[in-house]
């Protein structure tokens, strides 16, 4: 029972961590809570279903399922990244010098827009993920682990490692860290801030797309409203780990997944969604800088 819940928690936690990374990277660079990020995740889930449906229609899935799945992943990532890029250029870039309030409200606007955009184009009812492979797994001491859970955990872990390598080892990663530290200084030493911000949005959206697609595979159902609650939870995960910190977001996501799955099985499943908020509120009161974050001194 306990181990089972831990595995469930790790699965959900991996997904939260992937979304949380997008929040934390954008916050680190723009100090903006990208409210629309959860919707990108939702778009990823929808795009996955759409592309898989398309590949089934043209017979690619029956020809080679792994190829179709891989193509679906690639296309969803590409489209979600394009969405993230476009959102940044249209809704956030014009507001870069505005007050703190403006981009946040603009982000809420984008979030509402995307939800209704998907609802209008895809219908308000739940979408079913095409049933392409058997939900198999293995049993161990009376507990079942499905392969899809293991797939989610492995993919999230690999992506997080890749991201960490990108941030720490590449030139662009270095530029991103520089911009996060001080935008003006970074631009003075010749870093193109606009490019860095765009890259941040593209990477964050790509990770969210993977998360959305994997969740669609895991639960088998998606709805246009899943983005909001997942977004809030992922944001909680980011805050939990210390917003702006990449290892923090990974750790926070996994911790949140574990807490949620354990508390809903041991306390009460009805309030499953409330736990995230309660954790968020407690964390912000006790240690607003999060577990890995640095305390922010306010200067005049």
């Amino acid at each position, binding site marked *: 029972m306990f181990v089972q819940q831990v595995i469930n928690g790790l699965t959900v936690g991996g997904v939260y961590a992937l979304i949380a990374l997008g929040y934390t990277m954008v916050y680190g660079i723009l100090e903006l*809570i990208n409210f629309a990020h959860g919707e990108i995740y939702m778009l990823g889930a*929808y795009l996955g279903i759409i592309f898989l449906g398309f590949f089934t229609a043209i017979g690619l899935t029956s020809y080679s399922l792994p190829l179709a799945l891989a193509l679906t992943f690639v296309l969803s990532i590409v489209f979600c990244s394009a969405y993230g890029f476009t959102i940044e250029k249209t809704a956030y870039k014009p507001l870069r010098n505005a007050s703190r309030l403006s981009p946040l409200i603009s982000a809420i606007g984008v979030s*509402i827009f995307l939800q209704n955009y998907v609802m209008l184009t895809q219908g308000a009812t739940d979408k079913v993920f095409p049933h392409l492979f058997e939900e198999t797994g293995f049993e161990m001491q009376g507990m079942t682990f499905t392969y899809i859970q293991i797939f989610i955990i492995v993919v999230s872990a690999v992506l997080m490692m890749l991201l960490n390598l990108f941030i720490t080892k590449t030139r662009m990663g270095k530029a991103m860290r520089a911009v996060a530290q001080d935008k003006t200084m970074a631009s003075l030493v010749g870093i193109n801030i606009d490019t860095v911000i765009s890259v941040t949005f593209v990477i964050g959206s790509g990770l969210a797309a993977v998360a959305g697609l994997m969740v669609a595979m895991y639960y088998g159902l998606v709805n246009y409203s899943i983005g909001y609650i997942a977004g*809030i939870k992922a*944001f909680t995960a980011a805050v939990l780990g210390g917003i702006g910190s990449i290892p923090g977001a990974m750790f926070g996501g996994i911790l949140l997944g574990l807490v949620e799955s354990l508390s809903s099985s041991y306390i009460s499943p009805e309030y499953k969604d409330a736990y995230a908020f309660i954790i968020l*509120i407690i964390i*912000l009161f006790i240690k607003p800088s999060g577990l890995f974050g640095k305390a922010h001194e306010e200067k005049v």
Partner: protein
Amino acid sequence: MREQRAESKEQRAKDTDKKRLGFVLRPVIIALWLALLFLPFRGIKDALILFVTLSILLFIFRALSGYAKTLTEKFNVIRQSVSSGLETVYARPKTPRFVAYLLLLGFILSVPFFAKDYFIDVLILAGIYVILAQGLNVVVGFAGLLNLGFVAFYAIGAYSYALLNTKMGLGFWSALPLSVVLASFSGFLLAVPALRLKGDYLAIVTLGFGEIVRLVLNNWDSVTKGPNGIGGIEPPYLFATPLGGLSYYYYFILAFVALTVFMVRRVYKSRTGRAWVAIREDEIASSSIGINTTAYKLYAFAFGAFWAGAAGALFAAKMQFVSPESFTFMESVLILSMVILGGLGSIPGVILGAVILVILPEMLREIQLYRMLALGSGLVLLMIFRPQGLFRPGRLSRLAGESRYLMGGKGVSFRS
């Protein structure tokens, strides 16, 4: 600065032939990009339609924005000459403003005599939202504390009245003070810990609070009857007559709106109101001149929640039914949109914002489906083109130029 840059850019572009090509190409490229993004969701046919309409629209927009400046200049010249001409001809007397106000008041008071029931119903709803939006205006507009869970206080007010009425048999007038105090107190309770946080974090915590309240209402079946809601709530009685009829309730709400606006205005003009604005503009500076910032922020939260509670009780009494569905995050966003559209911190603006955002969707019933789509994009456009909303609060434009809180980086930003 931005205008200057845009001007010089335009000048440069004008010299080259490149511009002519870009003039046509840019809208087409943007439209193509957006249509490509749209493609998976609706297929090739709809994407093509979108591409064509978007390129035409963007092209028209581009063509117009080039002329817009010269057009407005010309228009201004004409307007000035006309008005100065009129002034010399008539030696224009100052229009007595109160005549306009009287006409408006007469119209508002006489609505039930000529309007259809449906319209009165919509106006009653608008009145409730005006009260709510004024409450949020105190928190976000005056004190500058972004609250994304304001609907929680509305819900607490509504459920308090619903429960006090159906379970304990209290009438409206004895339940109202209790619900208002409960809402106000919950505002206070949230504020005590939440005010240690700033800006975005505060916004998220209030959002979480709103969601928790909704989840509790949804799941605490033994008290709130969960998603089924509570029905059979009594309308208020006045002199032993129930105010069930629409026109009675209309005047009743009107009286409440008047009371709200009066009270909010009085507080805004007081020392407390000035303290709020000072905190909004610069917290550190205001605490350095001896304003107890924590205390004043607490007042703002409790005072705002007070009106939300009143609006909630009025809503429950009007609908005679409450359910958690009426108190979602979208509702919070809607109220916030009213405040922002009207103009943060402007009392008449917020009234107008609330009335517009209630009446407009009702008038556009046919495109009901696109309502939220329009709200979402409207918020983005509003932030880009007119972040201060329809009205600007008078106090700032008179004394301190632009508000840093509302307009952002116009002045020197000291934020590191």
